[in-house]
């Protein structure tokens, strides 16, 4: 089975490593998770497992559709579902648990999550443009400046960096090191920052 799990970002803190150095870590409540559905090439066109993040309140707030889906597979209702691609020969079946025990300290993982939304942001915030000077009669402050020539090409090139929605998109941070695995409380301590707010859901994957 591919090494992956769903987690909930709890926040950041710091710990000491063996050399006595301070390491900034993000604490992630990783699971316990459960396999809800096995997708196969014959039936679904690809091989994957659908994994659910086991609710603390036993799926009390799950919708009817979510309850129905879980009931059909014979597992407790879960609200957060994610898919992980697996090999066709994989023996994973609904009801199998997915735990932090698959990870160990020092390995590199990729963490994906939805970044914090910043709303409609200007070019200075969104693309790190420099802007103009604030004083001395300057009338050019946070504007983008020229976005292209008027006679030629007489159009704006696609992909021109401008203001717009910033954040609230899926972001993957690759090669983050696992600082510590807490099997007892299902916690993963990952070195560095991960996308999203506290309480946001992230997917942690270890590439083979």
């Amino acid at each position: 089975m591919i090494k992956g799990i769903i987690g909930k970002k709890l926040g950041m803190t710091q710990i000491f490593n063996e050399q006595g150095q301070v390491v900034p870590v993000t604490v992630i409540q990783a699971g316990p998770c459960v396999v809800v559905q096995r997708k196969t090439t014959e039936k679904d066109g690809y091989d994957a497992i659908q994994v659910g993040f086991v609710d603390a309140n036993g799926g009390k707030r799950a919708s009817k559709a979510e309850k129905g889906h879980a009931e059909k597979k014979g597992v407790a209702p879960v609200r957060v579902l994610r898919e992980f691609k697996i090999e066709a020969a994989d023996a994973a079946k609904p009801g199998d648990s997915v735990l932090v025990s698959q990870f160990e300290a020092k390995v590199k993982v990729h963490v994906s999550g939805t970044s914090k939304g910043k709303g409609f942001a200007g070019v200075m915030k969104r693309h790190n443009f420099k802007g103009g000077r604030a004083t001395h009669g300057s009338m050019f402050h946070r504007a983008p400046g020229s976005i292209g020539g008027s006679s030629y090409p007489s159009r704006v090139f696609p992909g021109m960096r401008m203001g717009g929605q910033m954040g609230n998109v899926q972001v993957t941070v690759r090669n983050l090191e696992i600082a510590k695995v807490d099997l007892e409380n299902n916690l993963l301590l990952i070195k560095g920052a991960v996308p999203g707010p506290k309480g946001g859901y992230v997917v942690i994957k270890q590439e083979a």
Partner: protein
Amino acid sequence: MNIIDKLEQSLLRKDLPKIGPGDTVKVHVKVREGEKERIQIFQGTVIGIKGGGMRASFTVRKIASGVGVERIFPLNSPIVDKLEVLRHNKVRRAKLYFLRAKLGKAGRLKEIRQDA
């Protein structure tokens, strides 16, 4: 208590004595030289404690051959092997940065005696 607080609580060092600003302390520091590890002693006055919980650190000031030397230690760091409080001094503020401007006898602090 939330999970992060609990986690930090479990990582805090409980073997160190409580220190306050003005205390004269002896800090046993682990020093790594290549493969070997030895203990170095840094003795001086605690002139401030910063932060709390896992982030707490303290500053120790001493006069070494006429030059003021300050060293900042993370309170929960494993590099602090042992911490000894030699005496408690009477101080009226939390940060004793004014000691930096005092030379010689002017930089002395009055001891608080626990007996009596």
